[in-house]
């Protein structure tokens, strides 16, 4: 009887000590964030090369006027610059980095040279256009005192 009583008390104590245990779970999942990123380049400036030339002059005439411009491209984006071939007021060809042109009205020949482009940095990158008009050209002008001609060129940045 005594043994039975002890066993009963032990069981009750054991049962009394049992408490439901708290349980926690986690669930995870992957998701993607899609970034559609469009790189871009812009060119700014007031590019306006000017040749002042005297018919038959003995020395080469470098381009003057506004020759500087800037290119701003997305960081890391490589890009190239090119000039046109034939256009309004002129004929010619462009073989990087130099274009050789003839002003149709005056028959004067000249060259335009682009600087080497580097990859974009996100900041404005300064460049300068070069230009030359060879010596010894007669040209054509039917106005007393001189003539002014204008060619409309196109600068293209490809990225």
């Amino acid at each position: 009887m005594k043994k039975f009583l002890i066993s009963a008390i032990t069981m009750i104590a054991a049962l009394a000590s049992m408490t439901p245990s708290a349980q926690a779970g986690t669930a995870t999942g992957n998701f993607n964030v899609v970034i559609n990123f469009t790189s871009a380049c812009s060119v700014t400036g007031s590019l306006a090369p000017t040749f002042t030339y005297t018919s038959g002059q003995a020395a080469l005439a470098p381009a003057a006027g506004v020759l500087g411009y800037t290119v701003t491209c997305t960081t890391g984006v490589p890009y190239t610059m090119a000039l046109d071939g034939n256009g309004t007021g002129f004929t010619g060809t462009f073989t990087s980095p130099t274009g050789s042109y003839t002003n149709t009205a005056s028959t004067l020949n000249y060259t335009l040279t682009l600087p080497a482009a580097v990859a974009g940095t996100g900041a404005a990158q300064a460049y300068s256009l070069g230009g030359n008009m060879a010596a010894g050209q007669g040209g054509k002008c039917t106005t007393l005192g001189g003539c002014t001609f204008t060619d409309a060129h196109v600068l293209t940045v490809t990225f």
Partner: protein
Amino acid sequence: MTASITLLGKSAHRAIAAKVSVALAALLGVWVLPSQAGQSSGQFPVTINLQNSGGLPNAGLCRSRTSIGTFGTKVIVDCLTGTVVNFSGEASSLPWATVRDNSFRFMLNSYGVVGLQGTLDNYAGVGTITTWRTINLSDYDYLELMVHW
């Protein structure tokens, strides 16, 4: 003369390529950025100021192979380019200094007048007018004479 240009560019969207790339990325579980290319372009002016090299525009100088006093020498002058592009003769044999696109005076014989009019020097010669024409420009007319000597 200046003109402003502002060139703003956007990448050419390759929608199909982008979708395919994204689909492949999802399929492969990796991130692939679609390659994109774009162009920016714009115009800028190139100005040429051509100044005549003194004297009249389209001035040409006739020179001959033979000496003064010989007739019939053919001289070809291209007055459109403002320079003598082709002429026969050797400048070294001429009795006067080589002149190009500068004033050159001819001592023309006048009817009823004996002798030359003016002073003869290195920039002058005797001759006979064979042809002449007037050139009408927008704000200026001038007389062009062809002289044989």
